[in-house]
């Protein structure tokens, strides 16, 4: 009997009949919903390419059964920009050259956003590197990635302060 689940993906409700309970959240996002921005690198929790936000928290979508996430709110890389207006984290990655081939980038950006939301990022690059260590970059764009997180964090903090 297929399992029926519903997910809110980037603000849109998706009702999905899972023929096979083995589907991970990553597989459902890519193969059923067609959102291929989230990448499959290792499929074993080791690289971070599959990072998405579940109810605002960054996790590896390759190590989560879709069935377990029934009812959850998922944010993927496709959910960040408003039309052509990039999200501050996306803009910062471009400004600081936080990538080369780009394969790890959606995961890096989602992880960075998760980190900023955790409220523990500061301007110490060592803390940022540690907090981003779950995202491997085979092109080794780490310097730019660290700078991007610091920049985006500062901007998002400022915007928040000016709004409050």
């Amino acid at each position, binding site marked *: 009997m297929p399992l029926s689940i519903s997910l809110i993906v980037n603000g849109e409700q998706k009702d999905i009949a899972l023929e096979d309970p083995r589907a991970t959240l990553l597989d459902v996002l890519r193969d059923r919903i067609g959102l291929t921005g989230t990448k499959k690198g290792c499929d074993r*929790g080791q690289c971070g390419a599959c990072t998405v936000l579940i109810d605002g928290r*960054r996790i590896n979508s390759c190590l*989560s059964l879709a069935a377990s996430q029934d009812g959850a709110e998922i944010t993927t890389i496709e959910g960040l920009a408003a039309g052509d207006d990039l999200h501050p984290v996306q803009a910062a990655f471009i400004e600081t050259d936080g990538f080369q081939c780009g394969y790890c980038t959606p995961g890096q950006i989602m992880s960075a956003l998760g980190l900023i939301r955790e409220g523990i990022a500061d*301007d110490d690059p*060592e803390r940022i*590197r540690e907090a981003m260590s*779950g995202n491997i970059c085979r092109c080794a764009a780490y310097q730019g990635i660290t700078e991007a997180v610091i920049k985006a964090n500062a901007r998002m903090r400022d915007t928040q302060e000016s709004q409050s």
Partner: protein
Amino acid sequence: MNLFEYLRPASLDEAIAAARAPGATYLAGGTNLLDLMKIGVQTPRTIIDISRLPGLDRIERLADGATRVGAMVRNADLARDADFAANYPAVAEALLSGASAQLRNAASLGGNLMQQTRCSYFQDPHSACNRREPGSGCAALDGETRNHAVIGWSDQCIATHPSDFCVPLAALGAVVEVAGPGGTRDLPIAQLHMLPDATSPGGTTLAPGEMITGLRLPPEAAAFRDNARYLKLRERTSFAFAVVSVAAMLRMEGDVIAEARLALGGVAAQPWRRAEAEAVLAGAKPGDDAIAAAAEALMAGARPSGDNAHKITLAKRLIQKALHLAAAGTPAVMPALPASVFTSEPAERGEPADV
């Protein structure tokens, strides 16, 4: 991955009843179970998803000063709980030194305690492995043994328990709360992971169908909050399992150690704690001699299980370093690199604070 039936029971009783089915396994955060299912090492027929069971996600301070943590509290949430981290700083440091931020957001307390060894032969279904297939032998004995035990092992199995979290928990005498078909019971964490012996490869002492529902830190555990460290040697700075790790905690009275707690990770099939090593420190000043004697006492009986004699040296040195740092005091803020032996001070790293 094999096909399975997926169940999401609504209550603890329902979950425990469902776990009677042969081949049934609990699923929490999934970060270990799904990983092992993908490579065919675990093949459950029924998966019982306990991640939303009510009542398992609380951190509570009990009236007697003990702290109770539910089995589904995520590793990240526990480490970032301000009250918990203030009272048990070495536990928070150990948690934050484990895995990655994404994994810690998913990983649960129960799953961390119950995670399988990272022995690469255990993870390869084509290799002989007594743990995976009793009686098949142990391929690690003549293999790559860098991650393997140097104490408390037998020819049946030389694997280590990979958890960071369990190491300070063992030092603090945590009590695991278990529920199963026969009711509930308390299990000291020292009795959760069995060492191998002449006939058995070790493993956990939970009976089939038993579930960890939570864990208690006894009232006296908070007395070590001012002098507590967890140190972890890894093959890279972050996001790696321990080669060797140490939880060191002291209760000081003036400049004398009133009581010490000490446990090692990465060296045995259970967090390695020995009363004799702690006794060496009780009543002593935290000087070089007492600390070196404690390291020797904790490693008494150590012997390489293969090409890993260096781990014995590393362990003795790391125990001493951790004790010296614990004596100097718990850091006021969590180090930028939790559990690292490297400095966290930006100036000492030779790095400008603003890049």
